């Protein structure tokens, strides 16, 4: 499996991009040449130079530093949220599929209700209630996405539970807890991992999208979506200011998507048995 992964070009490109963005996110404060929030009105819209490798924006802030710090915003929000959502999804999904009957139907109806609300509506109402801030964004993402995760896990678990080896495990005297932990979860985990790694791309785009609309972050935060929004008004004179953060979002999302999809191709049905 790992060997196959190393051979796959798509997976390696994806992985390289992921590692690159992660390293940047971790080391951003150290490698950023300038303070990303330092305003220097005299040096507005400077083109690339040795002092400012990618130039400066409309307030004279170093674009490169802002982009580097932006990576830690995107990943710093997306990864923990994803972990929380993954755990919630895994627990609720497998539990409801295993218990079955009435509880399962209740669970599915609740999921459907949550899935019916677009994330944007939830984030708007949360920001209305809690005010601007990271917390609103996090809650909104979690609120609008948990049902998707739980339902996907549910469908994987449902499929596994109907297989004979779960019945055989019951006959072998396994307790319910053992069946869930030793049989169901390890068997749905590869598919789930694929879902997570493609899901993270969507989440990064979602978060950037919110901040592009001015939701969640304070004005001036070096977040990619927010930078896009600020650069919008100078698009005709300085298109590169829109181009850079857009490219960053693209690279990050593409990295996770490429890797996730390569992983999915590897775990096609006949190879799940390996």
């Amino acid at each position, binding site marked *: 499996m790992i060997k196959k992964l190393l051979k796959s070009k798509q997976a390696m490109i994806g992985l390289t991009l992921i590692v690159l963005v992660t390293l940047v996110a971790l080391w951003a404060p150290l490698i950023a040449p300038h303070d990303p929030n330092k305003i220097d009105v005299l040096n507005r819209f400077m083109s690339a130079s040795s002092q400012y490798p990618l130039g400066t924006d409309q307030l004279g802030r170093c674009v490169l530093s802002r982009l580097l710090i932006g990576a830690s915003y995107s990943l710093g929000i997306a990864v923990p949220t994803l972990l929380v959502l993954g755990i919630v999804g895994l627990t609720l999904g497998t539990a409801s599929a295993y218990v079955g009957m009435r509880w399962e139907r209740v669970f599915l109806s609740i999921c459907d209700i949550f899935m019916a609300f677009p994330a944007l509506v939830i984030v708007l109402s949360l920001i209305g209630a809690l005010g601007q801030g990271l917390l609103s964004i996090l809650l909104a993402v979690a609120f609008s996405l948990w049902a998707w995760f739980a339902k996907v896990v549910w469908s994987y678990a449902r499929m596994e539970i109907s297989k004979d*080896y779960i019945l055989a*495990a019951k*006959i072998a*005297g396994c*307790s319910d807890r053992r069946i869930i932990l030793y049989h169901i979860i390890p068997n749905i985990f590869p598919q789930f991992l694929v879902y997570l790694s493609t899901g993270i791309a969507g989440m990064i785009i979602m978060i950037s999208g919110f901040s592009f609309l001015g939701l969640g972050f304070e004005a001036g935060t070096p977040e990619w979506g927010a930078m896009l929004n600020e650069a919008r008004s100078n698009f005709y004179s300085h298109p590169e200011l829109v181009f850079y953060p857009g490219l960053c979002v693209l690279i990050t999302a593409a990295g996770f998507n490429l890797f996730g999809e390569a992983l999915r191709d590897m775990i096609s049905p006949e190879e799940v048995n390996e």
Partner: protein
Amino acid sequence: MIELKQVSKQYRVKDRQRSKLKVNAVHQVSLALCYQKSYALVGESGSGKSTLARLIMGIEKPTNGEICLDGRNIALMRSRELRLKRAEVQMVLQNAQSALDPRLSAYDSIAEPIRCLTKTDKSGERSKVFEFAEKVRLTSEQLRRLPHELSGGQQKRVCIARAMSVSPKFIVFDEAVSGLDVTVRKEILDLILQLKKDGIGAFLFITHDIDVALYMADQLFVMKDGSIVEWIENAASYDDFHHEYSRQLIQSLPPKSPNYRKESVNR
């Protein structure tokens, strides 16, 4: 002693018009199976054989009637008690490949009932697994393999060793040889008979093949549409079957010699 008293099982299904239908999978079956004899249950597909096996194992609850293991009604048992009863009554499922967890090695699959049902330490578990693996003729190298790396017959033997690993008093074999090659089939059947001689207690062999049933057991049940239509003790040949349906089953066996071919086509 496993006793079934007037056991019925109904399933509710929906037909094409989405109206509810009730299907009697098992209808008013009374049986007593003791832990010393071998039994075989014959019937066509859909006659309720597998449902009966599931009822005996307590995987499904009967709609009517009661099933008692050693005098205790399994419907009244707590789930923990029923779980521990599995150490006495085991089952080998129909499809060996899907009955094994694709991520567990043959060794772990065989060891699982020992881990779940008995308090055996690692070395005791190891010696037990190897003991039963040897009985079903699996090498220690094969024990390390994953299910998909084993052949159909080997998978079946892993399932049999798994059911035997807790030394149960009674084993239910559900279609243990269907879907296997003829040569492998004989091998598995002889293996089960040999194991019976070595003392695995008793078994109930469920099959649709009347020849196999005759070969395996001396107590035969014939099942049709959820009811037991005939019960024969010490069956020795086809002549012992008297019920109309049993005769019909025998008649539909393919003839053993090509000379009969013409005859049956012309008829």
